[in-house]
């Protein structure tokens, strides 16, 4: 085995090995600590209630962005901290969509407010968070399930409006889709820390 003038050519750089070991331990400790003490950022998106959002989208001929969230899901907290707390992204969302937040309380309270289950069924929501870009005029929508990272989510938010034009017809998923126009979304969903909205309109 050839050797350099200072020793073996297979010598391990101790500083790197020690740094790797120490950083791995610190990584685990910080991971556990941040999991138990999450530093939540303020959500910068002005989320609407579903019925108000639908009406506004109709008036503006704009797309809807549904954010299906569950308070007990860490990934919902992560997407809010990484994406929706960012002022620039919030501004872009407001320009491109009418944002609507739908909170699922099944896991936390045992049941949902009226209309939440119907919305989830309509858009085939099976996991949280799920984002849905919905065109009320055509009934087409695009869906992003789960949360991977901020880059992937912002990329989806930027491309979803164009993709929604060629997305799935809403009647393909969920039983309510073919039942009426998009005003069927007028259901009562109470968002976190917000007063109860008016009673639902009958179709």
């Amino acid at each position, binding site marked *: 085995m050839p050797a350099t003038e200072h020793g073996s050519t297979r010598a391990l750089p101790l500083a790197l090995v020690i740094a*790797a070991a120490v950083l791995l331990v*610190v*990584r685990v400790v910080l991971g556990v*600590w941040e999991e138990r003490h999450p530093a939540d950022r303020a959500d910068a998106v002005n989320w609407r209630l579903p019925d108000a959002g639908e009406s506004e989208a109709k008036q503006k001929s704009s797309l809807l962005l549904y954010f299906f969230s569950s308070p007990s899901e860490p990934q919902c907290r992560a997407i809010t901290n990484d994406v929706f707390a960012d002022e620039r992204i919030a501004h872009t969302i407001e320009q491109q969509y009418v944002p609507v937040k739908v909170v699922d309380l099944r896991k936390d309270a045992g049941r949902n407010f009226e209309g939440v289950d119907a919305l989830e069924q309509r858009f085939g929501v099976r996991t949280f968070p799920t984002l849905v870009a919905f065109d009320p005029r055509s009934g087409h929508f695009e869906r992003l399930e789960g949360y991977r990272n901020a880059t992937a989510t912002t990329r989806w938010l930027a491309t979803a409006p164009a993709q929604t034009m060629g997305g799935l017809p809403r009647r393909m998923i969920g039983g309510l889709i073919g039942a009426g126009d998009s005003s069927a979304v007028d259901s009562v969903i109470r968002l976190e820390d917000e007063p109860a909205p008016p009673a639902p309109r009958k179709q």
Partner: protein
Amino acid sequence: MNAPFNPTLVTSVLRQRATSPARVILCLAGWSLPLAVVALTKGGVGLQPLAMGTGFAYLLGAGIIGGEASAGVFQLLFARPVTRASYVLSRWLGVALAAAALTVTQVLVGALIMTAFHAPLDWSDAAKHMLDQALTAIGVTSVIVLFSSVLPGVGDVFAVFFGALGSSLVMGAGQLLQKPWLARAGTELNHFFGPEFSWRTAFEGSAPSWFHVVSWLSTITLCLALAIVAMNRREISYASD
């Protein structure tokens, strides 16, 4: 004590990558096409398409060590007094610097295009975007180096790609099955296979996320240390056929 980096090896890896026509063409395409999108939309899409840090790391890093193993370079190289650690670290540094330089210049040119079209641009955001992409390129290169030290040819890139895909599936399964521990395991694996850095996630929260910073650093040091161990364990045959 031997220097951890060998300047000759660093420049040789840069020269080697620059003389590979397929790699140069792909890098040129990856560099110019997103810029063309920015120019065609007159800056309307912002800097979003200029996120090629991972892509450049894949293009420049493929076969960084495994390719040389397959080509029989080790027999000649390690007959000289070159430590295996400095070989691994120099290869990594060369590719990481090249990938980072490509992505930084790409974002810089994109920002200049936006300025020329009078598109709204915050230069501090552009600088953060540059930093994110450069650090991501450096992180991803280290993962490729690890897999390249144990897999022949360009098997490293496939391993990293399928590892990232598999970890995304684990993450998705955890979210779908409402198993937070599974989703977290998938997330951590995903961060290992694709060590992306985000200034916003790290420092613009209500409190700095040191976990994000340490995770990125830990992945790099761990991958490089393991790659050196794998190289040290590799037996090189000098026997002829």
